[in-house]
């Protein structure tokens, strides 16, 4: 039995899945909803951070070696 998921949450995840061109059933969306929501919640947190003038970290730029 897939976990319960409300219709608004399902609609939101369906929109994201369609945008990602991901073919996925409602049952699978319900299965992954808890994990997806954890990851998506970060978007709200980021919106409140002061990231002015901050560039993304990149795998092409390892941290600088420690001096000394």
């Amino acid at each position: 039995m897939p976990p319960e998921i409300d219709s608004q949450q399902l609609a939101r995840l369906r929109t994201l899945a369609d945008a990602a061109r991901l073919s996925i059933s409602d049952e699978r969306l319900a299965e992954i909803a808890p994990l997806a929501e954890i990851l998506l919640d970060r978007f709200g947190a980021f919106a409140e951070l002061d990231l002015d003038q901050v560039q993304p970290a990149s795998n092409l730029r390892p941290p600088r070696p420690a001096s000394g």
Partner: protein
Amino acid sequence: MSEPHDLTIREAATALRDGSLTAAALTDAVLARAAVTEPAINAYITLTADLARQQAANADEELRAGRDRGPLHGIPVALKDIIDTAGIPTTAGSDFLRDRVPQSDAFVTRKLYDAGAVLVGKLNLHEFAMSTTSINPHYGPVGNPWDPARVAGGSSGGSAAAVAAGSALATLGSDTGGSVRLPAALCGVVGLKPTYGRVGRSGVVMISWSLDHVGPLTRTVEDAALMLNAIAGYDPNDGGSAEDPAGDFTRDLGRGVEGLRIGIARKLFWSRCDPEIEAACEAAIDVLRGLGATVHEVDLPLLHGARRTPILAVEAAAYHSTWLRQHADRYGDDARSLLEAGALIPGTAYVQAQRLRTKVIDETRALFNTIDVLASPTSPVVAPTIEAGDPKFVLARYIMDFNVTAIPAISIPCGFSGNDLPISLMLGGRHFGESALLRAAHAYEQATDWHRRRPSL
């Protein structure tokens, strides 16, 4: 002398040079040990016995001829099965790559061969290295050598179990969210995640380009340093590789911890911890304090907001996008769920996460102006049963932050639970500060004997 399969790299290297042991005999002992332990722990996907015996014979011949490649010469090692080995299947623990045979070696494979190491085989793991238990739906679960009904941890479960069981003297794993340190902790061995960029990753099946690291699992801190000496260095085929000169990571091991400043970030790395584990790790810090270290309460406020970052899931979903769209049913549940969830994350969220990560890395760099190591439990709980698994990722609670911040971190044994399961301490160091980190870990290890215990398989 210990049984050959129980030797450390340093002990075996000494025995190979004083004539009391040959690489051939050592390799035979390790293969014989694997024959005994594999039915219980399932650490290997592929054993390369014929190759190992041939390499061991070559190693002996070279030593007799006066060609000494260094401490790993003739030492039986094994590789997580996401690390390419020319002519040997490399499955990533997946159904997709079950029949894949790479035509060339990974950067780290070549480094180990050049150092004279003998390859015993390829190690089981969580499917595509994507979670914490190494309960693999295609190759079976890895059993913990201390209790085969329990998980070995993941994703490098086979890498840790083989070292603990004696079916390799040392192994390599990969660490995207703690996958070297966690299984090392649950199996009672040493696991080192170097600084991001320290060890080249070309020829390793990726999960997350910006979080993946390759690191050693060993029986002692000195052995971890010896393995790092062999595999560190600039990899021109890895865009994340650093050009920092590696040096000799064993050089400072004996310098002790007098004056070392230990940071304790309780809110981040000690919360909701099993009291038995918390007590063992507090006792370990007391040992370091007794050796001359000082202890300081610290925090990394921005890191709280960077937890549960979508970076790993999004990068993994990008790597797997074709397979996920065409053959999602060929993944096990854990990998499929992570990939599908990652595919749903908007691009803006991913970029914001990487921008926050920049600030977190800066915050971490600043913290290490005031301390020398961060100390915490590696895992908040001991190894769960295979039946229970880790559905809520409890095992990963403290470890992934070190991938986000890119600092080096090591897990070392520091005790046992009431039901005889390993407990481990994690130490984190400043970027490219592996030498100081290894020095602190070595000092603790020399003052205790947890690392000498072996499971009774």
